[in-house]
């Protein structure tokens, strides 16, 4: 698996293929949300700015926005989440990915927290 990077909003991102990135939410995020029952995914072709609202994840209790760690164009979504949103809880950084984004600015990726930095960040949240 390619290297994961993380945002302070608890999204993860990894290189899927060249300038296409795969994006989801972290294990910490899914544990805070609880049982995920619905994911509202972006439309393919949608342009999203870095930090822009990209998807909505609904747990039994509430709806939460998911932001894009980098700016770009949506080129794929994880249709498996429609039938089985619980994948987000069971495999948050694997089969529970949300969408794929093609970006012209790959440098944005390296500015994000790596796994060790994110682990420290989460620890600091108590």
């Amino acid at each position, binding site marked *: 698996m390619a290297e994961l990077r993380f945002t302070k909003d608890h999204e993860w991102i990894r290189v899927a293929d060249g300038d296409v990135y795969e994006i989801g939410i972290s294990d910490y995020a899914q544990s805070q949300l609880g049982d995920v029952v619905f994911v509202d995914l972006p439309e393919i072709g949608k342009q999203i700015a870095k930090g822009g609202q990209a998807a909505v994840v609904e747990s039994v*209790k509430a709806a939460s926005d998911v932001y894009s760690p980098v700016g770009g164009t949506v080129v794929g979504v994880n249709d498996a989440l429609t039938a089985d949103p619980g994948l987000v809880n069971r495999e948050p950084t694997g089969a529970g990915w949300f969408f794929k984004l093609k970006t012209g600015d790959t440098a944005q990726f390296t500015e994000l927290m790596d796994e060790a930095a994110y682990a420290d960040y989460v620890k600091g949240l108590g």
Partner: protein
Amino acid sequence: MSDDSDLKFTPLDALHRSLGAKMVPFAGYAMPVQYPAGILTEHLHTRSAAGLFDVSHMGQALLLGPDAATALETLVPGDLQVLKEGATRYTQLTDDNGGILDDLMATKRSDGLYLVVNAACKDADFARIEAKIGSRAKLQRLDDRALLALQGPKAAEVMARLAPDSVGQKFMTLRAGKIGAFDCWFTRSGYTGEDGYEISVPAAQAEAFTKLLLDQPEVKPIGLGARDSLRLEAGLCLYGHDIDTTTSPIEADLVWSISKRRRAEGGFPGAARVQKELADGPSRKRVGILPEGRAPAREGTEIVDSSGNKIGIVTSGGFGPTVNGPIAMGYVPASFAQPGTPVGLVVRGKTLPAKIAGMPFAPHRYFRG
């Protein structure tokens, strides 16, 4: 994180924390929203076995005196005079406009009535009762008692084991007696749609009593999150959301809680509006709503007609684990209230198709004997 310093704590606070509960502020109390099992598992466990809820934040009181039932009828539309000793009624405190100040349970005792009201309203409720009828009946708050709800299809088995006196007890009746070694008052009632009991116990014994119940193999602790999804599936109103001072008991589809005598006689605050709505029909009505897709429509979601005109609002909405899909309730004009009527729900700018639905969403399984 929220500051806990202004919060009140139930007698079970330490136990909740030791069980790994996630505590949240609710109605001025630190309350368990969920335990490590999670809301979905807790909900399904309550529907298949037995769930134990701490509802000690709710207000308990006695209204004492031979005139208690007659006096309280001047504040609520429920029929309290008809109650035999040990019988429980669901009713509402109404205001002069026929709006709902709170909903409550009233149980007839030999010395008066036993009342259970909502946590967020309890101080105002008890102040109103004292101010309006304090000269006719004496209100005695029971702040030294905890309240637990044991709910689910296995609740009766658990009670039969610990309290042989409970066998045969019918829905909406109270008995006083021992559960294990503990002196309790228990009504066969609850707010999940399941068979079960609400159990009042002295606060000093609440933790030991709760541990006894949790030691039973069928019983697991359940938080407020699952309490909300269970009551929504059961089609039951949450005060401050589905009912409040802007809604009348008739609009809220609570006609069943007002007897023929009280409908005819009135004699409670706002009776004129209630009687007019009974005669002419209410202009709007609380209904169930089933979204057709998988997206939940939360409280505050706009309900629209086929032309996109706003016709109402969702007052409770989310995911129903037993239904295994999104469910909601809200208010629509009477002309849209028929089950099967198509409506739209505006979720994040998109209008999603939905249908008005009969409630409950999950069948009630009360024990009527």
